[in-house]
């Protein structure tokens, strides 16, 4: 390869909004319900049914637009995108083509070299999700569940401003954080509440015109996105080097095979024949509505990080990790407000929490323990009512089930034994059982005391204060 190529990438990101009901009807959006139990004539496309816009969808879409520096369209409307597929019962998807709710925005990402780069946002529009198709293994048919049909989505269309997989991932992370901070969605790629389609073309470095692009679908992890970008870049360069043309088409990424294939044929041509939806009235965004949404914008990550630095005196690295998840930041702030010990709360999050998250493959958004319980655990340890090792043991149960640590310690009899008599009794037994170690300590081997402390703690089932054990052991041996 003698020529130098550059990859040009734009993204279409679909985000499922965290509303209680669907975009155009009062059906619940709760995940995991039995098939078709959350459907009605509107979201299953029955003739004569009429859609009515969920106000919350509009508010979330505007909030995301404001957070991404977009112009808010003051007079917006909905259009029908026509296509036939069984997951789309109306034979059209209600979307926005002509007057989308947000346009011309940008977000800033950090580049690998540590600089800042703006990625432009072409537009954000509101639309409805499709149903789910299940393929029957036994009979020659497919089955449709319309529970997801009509779940609200926003589609965020970027400008072709990204040049590498790293930039794409930085951009997605940025969007994820903004939207999670807004509470507008949980943005989980794996579960499909955030989906990214990659539009990619290559061109010779320095070329002014863009090459022909392809659109890649079915990317459900950051790793899959990186691999798909590498694979598609290579495929397009190979075509060009071989003197062939790149065809503008939609391709489906198969992550297990590490390759993509063209999805559509002439039989399902992409001609959506958009036209305004006559069933939905236009949306006029008033000054008051805009003012209200602007006033309700939360503190975003950068501001939060700045405030943490000033208020809490915890390391920058901790701040970075904690604010990477809105949920974890909420736990941190609430627990700190109760116990007044930011450093200790941070230590629990950075230590045991991250360790268990990694071990159990849990997402920070799914942490279940409450800040009240974490604060209580810190208090129990501070008051020396439990030892450090018992605290870790209790935390693990809290991590799983959000138990009240005080009650759990009580019920399981985990309180530190501060009764000196029983401690001395156990220590006497340990000394009697380990004459060699005792002799070693007496002959100056300081390390031997560690072993004896360990034996005592084991005999006490971890419920003794190690410092007290250490002190009494030394006294007893020297006697």
């Amino acid at each position: 390869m003698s020529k130098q190529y550059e990859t040009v990438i734009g993204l279409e990101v679909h985000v499922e909004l965290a509303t209680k009901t669907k975009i155009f009807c009062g059906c619940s959006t709760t995940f995991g319900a039995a098939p078709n139990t959350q459907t009605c004539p509107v979201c299953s496309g029955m003739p004569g049914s009429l859609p009515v816009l969920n106000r919350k969808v509009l508010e979330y879409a505007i909030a995301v637009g404001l957070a991404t520096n977009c112009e808010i369209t003051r007079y917006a409307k909905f259009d029908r995108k026509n296509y036939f597929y069984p997951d789309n019962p109306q034979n059209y998807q209600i979307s926005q083509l002509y007057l989308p709710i947000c346009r011309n925005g940008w977000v800033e990402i950090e580049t690998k070299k540590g600089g800042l780069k703006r990625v432009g946002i072409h537009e954000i529009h509101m639309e409805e999700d499709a149903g789910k198709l299940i393929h029957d293994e036994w009979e020659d048919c497919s089955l449709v569940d319309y529970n997801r049909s009509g779940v609200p989505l926003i589609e965020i269309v970027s400008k072709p401003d990204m040049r590498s997989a790293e930039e794409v991932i930085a951009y997605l992370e940025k969007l994820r954080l903004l939207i999670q901070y807004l509470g507008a969605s949980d943005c989980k790629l794996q579960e499909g509440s955030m989906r990214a389609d990659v539009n990619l073309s290559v061109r010779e470095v320095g070329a002014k015109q863009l090459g022909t692009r392809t659109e890649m679908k079915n990317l459900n992890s950051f790793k899959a996105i990186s691999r798909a970008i590498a694979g598609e870049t290579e495929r397009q360069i190979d075509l060009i080097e071989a003197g062939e043309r790149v065809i503008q088409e939609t391709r489906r990424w198969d992550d297990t095979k590490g390759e993509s294939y063209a999805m559509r044929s002439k039989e399902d041509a992409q001609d959506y024949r958009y036209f305004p939806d006559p069933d939905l009235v236009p949306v006029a965004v008033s000054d008051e509505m805009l003012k209200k949404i602007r006033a309700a914008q939360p503190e975003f990550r950068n501001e939060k990080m700045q405030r943490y630095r000033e208020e809490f005196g915890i390391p920058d690295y901790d701040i970075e990790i904690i604010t990477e998840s809105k949920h974890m930041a909420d736990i941190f702030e609430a627990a700190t407000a109760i116990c007044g010990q930011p450093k200790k709360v941070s230590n629990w999050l950075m230590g045991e929490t991250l360790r268990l998250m990694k071990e159990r493959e849990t997402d920070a958004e799914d942490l279940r323990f409450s800040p009240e319980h974490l604060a209580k655990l810190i208090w129990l340890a501070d008051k020396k009512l439990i030892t450090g090792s018992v605290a870790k043991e209790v935390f693990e149960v809290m991590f799983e089930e959000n138990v009240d640590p005080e009650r759990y310690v009580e019920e399981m009899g985990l309180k530190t034994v501060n009764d000196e008599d029983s401690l001395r009794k156990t220590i006497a037994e340990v000394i009697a059982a380990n004459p060699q170690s005792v002799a070693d300590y007496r002959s100056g081997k300081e390390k031997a005391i560690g072993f004896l402390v360990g034996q005592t703690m084991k005999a006490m089932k971890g419920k003794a204060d190690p410092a007290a054990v250490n002190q009494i052991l030394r006294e007893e041996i020297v006697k």
Partner: protein
Amino acid sequence: MANIISDETIEYVGILAKLELSQGEQEQAKADMGRMLDYIDKLGELDTTGVEPMSHVFPVQNVFREDVVTNNDMREQMLLNAPEEKDGMFVVPKTFL
């Protein structure tokens, strides 16, 4: 008739509409569509300088619902409309993704 619909166009429209037309039906549809376009072209004769495109027939805007669940499980009724059902779902011809 000013608008002539080509064979390719009628075939393409057939694909989009998922219709299989016989030779006779194709000819009939070509003539009908040509006349429809002629009729629409009539509108092109109007001078619309300075007229905003209409978004809706009625001067109504901002009709919203609040984000409150109002529908119960009505699967049974919904499935009454299914030509065939299985495991609480609508049965359709096999589709591939």
